[in-house]
């Protein structure tokens, strides 16, 4: 992407876009594409006292749900057609939306020191740093 290229976000479908369950996994899966998430993962998930457990590839995971910060929405953007040259403008569309995500730790119980929980505090602080200053 050259510095002059702009990536447009197609929002038109946002209203009707389906809500999707999103899971942040504690491993890198070398795959992009379809997966039987509901059959293998969601179906085997257990929810007890605010802590979720499941396993993936024989490893025990412990998870927690996180809400998007107030005034924020989760989006999944998907590139429509990759342009041939990096000079051209690009377009991504909103393929799904979410207002909460589930993140999974490997074995460790989810807690407020988890980096993703800490990262969720960024938008609130950003508003303070970048909000208009009084005269």
């Amino acid at each position, binding site marked *: 992407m050259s510095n002059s290229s702009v990536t*447009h976000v197609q929002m038109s479908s946002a209203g009707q876009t389906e809500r999707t369950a999103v899971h942040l996994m504690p491993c890198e899966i070398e795959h992009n594409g379809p997966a039987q998430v509901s059959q293998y993962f969601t179906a085997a998930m257990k929810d007890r006292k605010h802590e979720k457990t499941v396993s993936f590839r024989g490893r025990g995971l412990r998870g927690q749900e996180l809400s998007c910060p107030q005034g924020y929405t989760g*989006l*999944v953007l998907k590139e429509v057609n990759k342009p041939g040259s990096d000079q051209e403008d690009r377009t991504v569309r909103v393929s799904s939306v979410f207002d909460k995500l589930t993140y999974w730790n490997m074995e460790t119980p989810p807690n407020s020191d988890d980096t993703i929980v800490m990262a969720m505090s960024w938008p609130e602080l950003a508003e303070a*740093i970048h909000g208009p200053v009084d005269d």
Partner: protein
Amino acid sequence: MATKKKHTPNTQNDSWVVIAADSAIDTQKHDSGPAFVKLRNPSTDSASLYMLGSDVQLYEVKAFKEDFHSWFIGQTVQRDGRLLYITPVDPLFLILPYLMKSGKEGKFQRLDQVVMDEEFPACSRLLSCTRSLASLHHIAEEKEVGGQKFHRYSQERTMDWLKKKVERTVTALKKSNVSVGEGVKSATYVRVKQDSDANEEDYLRYAHGLISEYISGDLSKALLGHLQLPELTSPKETEPPSKKRKLSDKPVEAGEDYTKFNSADFARKPPKKMTAAQKTLAKVDKTGMKTMASFFSPKVKTENK
């Protein structure tokens, strides 16, 4: 059992998980869709990704990125485990470097002739951010001639503006559970929730550090002076490096060059009139040098010429 697994490059990445400010993506009230653009990052002076929201405001993009993550999104896997945050950014931070550059000539200029960048053509759109024009007086003096507005960078105004930013940030930090106390941080470091040790200076320095993510290194130092925070006088801050140094037999060298800011930017072209901020700055810098001299060998000063 654990076999060695090679990482193959992720070449087919065409999807991103994002958490975006509703205002940036609200197309109900606005016609134009949001767009990602590249602009000159005022802190690094190189390209960073921003978003022009559908509300014609500027947003920045930051990625939560840690090794060993992937997403399940509905019935799909996305290998790229990043989470992108789209949060508002004050467009003045990005206009500031252009204004400062043209301010060296000391003339009032038309803004559209100041905010120009061959490398980043999208920068002209900074001026269409509704907030930009309304808040320019925070960083520039304004003159209106024949219905046209002209601007000239003002260090004094900028310093006051940045100070207010720092104060706002301090207030927000105090309300948050962000740990602002100094200390060595690592992945395994367990933070203490009750940050009772944190004093006013810790908050101020932390907020200054955050604001410094959006301004040049020089401006960051000047702001430190304006906040009357001496450089490297906090014992907590100097302790780890100085302790480490004492352990080594090698001759000590200056960790930072305190003379450079003065010599490079002010001494070379001494301003006719020093602004209040610069006066404070000059004063602070000297004490800084004194502090440093007591810490390190005097050899440093000559070495850095």
